[in-house]
C-alpha cells in the first residue's frame, strides 16, 4: 500500500474547523454553540475522509475500477454523521428559541442544583460533620436501652400480655 501522507491543506482546514468549533461550543449562547457544533461536524467529517484512506474515484461499480475506488465505508459513516448533525442543529436551535421565549436570551445557564451541591460541600469542608462528634463509649453506653419486658410484673410462666 502506498504510504502517502494526507493533504496538508485539508489537515489544516480540519484543525481550524475543530478549534473554531471548540471555541464556540465553550460559549454560553446556544446559537453560538449550534454554529460551533456545525463547524466541529464539518471538521470531523474531513478528518474521517483523510484518515479513511487514500483519495480515489467514486465507489460506484462500473464507474470506477475497483482498485481506483475510494474507501466506501468511511463515506457511509460520514453520510450518517451529516444527517445526524442536521437533526442535532434543528433541536439545538429550537432549544435556543425556547430559551429566548422564556428568558429573553439564549444562554446556557449554570446548573443551580450543581451549584448548591458545591456550596454545601464547601460548608461541610469548613465545619466538621455533626454526627461524628467525639462521643466516648461510656456516654454511648448510657444511652443504650433495649425495649425490654417489664419483668417486675411477670411471673415464672407469664401468660402472653393482652395486646
Amino acid at each position, binding site marked *: 500500500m502506498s504510504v502517502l501522507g494526507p493533504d496538508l491543506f485539508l489537515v489544516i482546514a480540519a484543525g481550524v474547523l475543530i478549534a473554531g468549533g471548540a471555541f464556540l461550543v465553550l460559549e454560553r449562547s446556544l446559537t453560538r454553540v449550534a454554529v460551533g457544533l456545525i463547524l466541529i461536524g464539518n471538521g470531523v467529517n474531513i478528518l474521517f475522509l483523510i484518515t479513511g484512506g487514500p483519495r480515489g474515484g467514486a465507489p460506484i461499480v462500473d464507474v470506477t475500477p475497483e482498485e481506483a475506488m475510494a474507501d466506501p465505508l468511511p463515506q457511509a459513516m460520514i453520510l450518517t454523521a451529516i444527517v445526524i448533525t442536521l437533526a442535532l442543529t434543528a433541536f439545538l436551535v429550537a432549544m435556543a428559541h425556547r430559551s429566548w421565549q422564556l428568558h429573553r436570551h439564549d444562554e446556557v445557564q*449554570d446548573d443551580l442544583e450543581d451549584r448548591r451541591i458545591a456550596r454545601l460541600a464547601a460548608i461541610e*469542608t469548613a465545619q466538621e460533620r455533626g454526627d*461524628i462528634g467525639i462521643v466516648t463509649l461510656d456516654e454511648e453506653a448510657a444511652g443504650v436501652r433495649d425495649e425490654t419486658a417489664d419483668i417486675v410484673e411477670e411471673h415464672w410462666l407469664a401468660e402472653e400480655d393482652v395486646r
Partner: protein
Amino acid sequence: MLQLLIAHLAAALAAPALVRWLGRRAFLLLAAVPAGAAVWAITATNAVLDGREPTVSISWVPALGLDLVFRVDTLSWLLVLMVGGIGSAVLIYSTRYFSARSSDLGRFAAVFVGFAGAMLGLVTSENLIQLYVFWELTTIFSYLLIGHYSERVTSRRAAMKAILVTTLGGLAMLAGIVLLGHEAGTYELGEILTAPPTGAVTSTAIALILVGAVSKSALIPFHFWLPAAMAAPTPVSAYLHAAAMVKAGVYLVGRLAPGFSTLPVWQAIIGVLALITIVHGGFRALRQSDLKLILAFSTVSQLGMLVLLVGSPFKAGALAGLALLGAHALFKACLFLVVGIVDAATGTRDLNLLSGIGRRMPVTATIGALGVASMIGVAPFAGYVAKEAALEAIIDDQAALAPFGWPILVVFALGSALTIAYGLRFWWGAFATKRNVTASLEVVRPPLLLVAPPMAMALAGIATALLPGLGETLLRPHARTYPLGEPGHLAMWSGFSPAFQVTLAAFAIGIAVFLARHRLSGWRIPWPEQWDGDRVYRNTLRRVDQTAAATTAVVQRGSLPFYLGILFLVVVVGALPGLLTAGVEANLWLGTDVIVIAASIAIVAATVLAVRARRRMKAVILAGITGYSTALVFLVYGAPDLALTQVLVETVTLVVFVLVLRRLPIYFSDRPLVASRWLRLSVAAVFGLLVAGLALLVPQARIHEPDSADLPTTAEEFGGGKNVVNVILVDTRAWDTLGEISVLLAAATGVASLIFLRHRSTERPRPGSFEEISGKLGASEPDPVARLRRPRHDEAPTRRASWLVAGVTLAPHRRSVILEVAVRFLYHTMIVVAVFLLVSGHNAPGGGFVAGLVVGIAITARYLAGGRYELSAAAPLQPAFLLGSGLFLAAGTGLASMIFGGEVLESAIVRWTMPVFGEIKLVTSLIFDIGVFLVVIGLMLDILRSLGAELDHQGDVLDEDGEPVRQALEPAKTIVRRES
C-alpha cells in the same frame, strides 16, 4: 445439611408474619430451627469422629468450576453446635426479654434467624468462594442487628462502624482468596490444605485473608467495632460475642492453620496482634463501668487468646484453643444474658448504680457466678480445663516457641490474671451490695424462660468440664491435623505442674488487682491517643467525607463551558502521549488539486470570521460556507453521495437558522464569558492542534487491509447495487441506519415539542378553517405601498381552495407572486427528481437521505413563498405519520426478511421482465430506503411546521403596538384565559 439452610431461609422469610400472628411466642417456634441444626450436629457426632464427614455437593456455576460444597469435620461440627445451640437459646430468651410492644420484632426475628443460617453456611462451606459469600452475608445481617434501633444515632453509628470495618477486611480477604485459589489451582479447602501452596504469592494471599479474619474477630487494630456494637439489643450481643460473627474469624484461622500456620507471615500477624489484643482488651475491660462494655472488652481479650491458640502450629495449643472456643461460647453467652436480666429488672447496667441485686435475684446471681467462674478459669468449669490445657501447651512447647516462648507465656498469664480481675469485678459490680450505693430496686423474679437459657449454658459449662476425656475425644481429630508438637490433653487435674503454678500466680495477681481496683482506677495504659483504632477510624471517615466534598465542589460547578473544557482537555491529555510516541514519520504531502486548496482556504477564512462574528446571521452563513466548501472537498475525494447530501443539508440548516433567527436579536448578547476568553481560546487551539496532529499521523499508522476491501464485489453480488455507499447504508450496515433514523425521529419530535407549547394540532391550518384573527398573515403590519395597489376583487377570504393559497392568506405586501408561481411550477419537478434519486440511488449517487432532503427543500420553497397555509397545501400529511410509517417500513423490512428465513435486514433480489421497460430488478432494500426517505421528509416537515408555521402563528398574535403578545408565548394556562 442443605435442608437446614433452607429451613433457616424459610424461617427467616416467615418470621415477620409469625411474629405478627403469635407475638413474642413466635420466637419459641423460630428457636426450633437453630436447635434443629444443633441436634443434627449431635446425631452426626459419630460420623464426624469416624471420619465419615457428612458432605453435600451441588453444581452451582459449572463453567467457573464453582460448586456448592458443604462438609462437616470436627471444627465445623463444633461451630454448628455453637451456632445452633446458642442461637436457639438466645431466641428462647428473647420471648421474655423483649416487651410485647417492642418495635420491629418481626424484622428482628427474621434477621436473627437469617444470621444464624448464614453462620451455619459459613462454617460448613468447603469452597472458599462460597465461604466468602456466607461471610459477607453475616456482615450484612450483623449490620442489621447492631443497627436494630435504627432511630438511634448510637445504633446507626455502631452498625456503620461494624459493616465498614468488616467489609474492608472482607474485601482484603476476597483478594486473598482469589490469589490463594489461583496459586493452589482450586478453591476447595480440603484440596488446598492437603497440598498447601508456598511462595511469595501464597504468603500475600494468607496475609490478606488474615486481615479479613482479624477484622471479623475484632483483633487490634480492628477491635473498636466490637465494643461499639453493644448498641445492639443484648440478645444480639450475646450471639455476636459467643457464637457468631467474631467466631467466624476464629473459625477461619482454625480452618487454615493446619496448612499455613508455619508460614512466617502467619505467625507474625497472629502472634503480634493476638498478644497485644489480649493485654489491651483485658485492661480496657477492667476500666469499664457498663456491664455490657466489660463483657465486650473481655471478648476482645479472649478473642486474642483464642486466635493465638487456634492459630498456633501446635497440636496441643490447637486442642486447648478448641476447648476454649467452646467454653467461651457457653460462658460469654450466659453472662450477656445475665446482664440482660439485670438490665431488664433494674433499668441500668451501670455498676456504680447497682447494689444488692444478688440478694434480690439469687437465681440470676448464681447463674452469673457460674458463668464468671468458667470465664476466670475456676475448677471444675470448662474455662478452667481449657486454660490449663493452654498453659500446659505453651509450657510444653517452649523449646519450639523459642525465643518467643517466654513472652507468650507471660502475656497469656497476664491475660488470665486480668480475666480474673475483671471477672470478679463484673460479678461484684452486678450483684454485690455496695455500701456507698443506695438502690431502691423492686424485688423481682425473672420468668423461667428468661432464666433457663443462661442457666442451661452455665450448667453445660460444668458438664463439659466434668468429662474432659469426652471433650478431648471430640476435638482431637481437628487438633491432630496441626503440623507441629505432641498431641495435648484435656484434664481436670494433672498434678502440681508448672501450668498449675502459673494459674495460681495468675489468681494471686488477679485477686490483688480486683481488691486494689479503686486505687488502680486512674491508671491508664500508655497508648498514644492518635493510634487508637476508633480515632483513626473517625478521622479516616471524616477525611474521606471532606475529600469527597472538596472534589465535588471543584468538579461539579454546574457550568457547561467548564464541563466541555474539561472534556476537551481530557482528550488532549489522553491522546497526546500516543501522538508524541507514535514513531510514525509524518509524510507531508501538499495537495496539488486547486479545488482542494481553494476550498481549504475558504474553510479557514470562514471559520475564523464565524468565530469573530457578532451578528447571529453572519456566523450562520459563514458556517454554511465551510459546509459548502466541505462538500466540494467530498466531490474531489470521490464521494459524490456525500457532496450531494452535504449541499442539501447545508441548505436546510441555513433555512432552519433563518426561521429561528428571525425571532432572536440580531446580535449575540453581551458575552458573560469575556474574562475567560483567552483561556477558552487556548483550550480550543490546543484541541485543534491535537486533531490536526492525529490527522497527519493516523493515515500512516494503518497496518491492516481496510475492512471494505471486498465490499464493491459483495455489494453487487449480495446487495444488488452498484453504489457501494448506498448498499452499505441500506444493506451491509442497515442496523446502523435504522438506529440513525430513530435518532432523526426523536430529534423531530423534540423540535416539535419545544415549539408547540399547547398542543400539537392534528388539524392542518387551512384557509377559512383557521380562526380568522387578523384577516391575513401580516395584515396588521403597516403596508407602505398600499396606496399603489389596485383594489382587489378577491379581498374577502374565500373558502374555495385556490392554486395560489397565499392570495387569500397573506397580506399583499408580503407576497411575491412571481416566486409563488415559479415555486409552484418547480415543485412537482423536484418531487419527481427526488423519486428518481430514491430509486436510482442503489446504483448511482442518491438514495433515501438525499431524496428525502430534496423533497424537504421543495416543501420548504413552497412554505417560504406562500406562508404556512401553502405549507399544508404542499404537504397534506402529518409529520408524525411520515416519521412513524418510515420507521415502520424500515424496521418492517428487517422483520420480513427474518420471517422469510433470512438474516435481519437481509436483501433479496427480484427480477422480472416487463414489456416496454425490459428487465426490471427490484432489491428489497429499496423498501428500507423508502422508509429512510419518509423519515427524512417527516423530519423536514416537522421542522417547517414547528420552526416555520407555528412560529408564524405565535408571531401573528400581536398587540396594539405590533409586539407579539407575551401570553401567546407562554404555555397553557395563560392562553386559556385569552381564549375564554
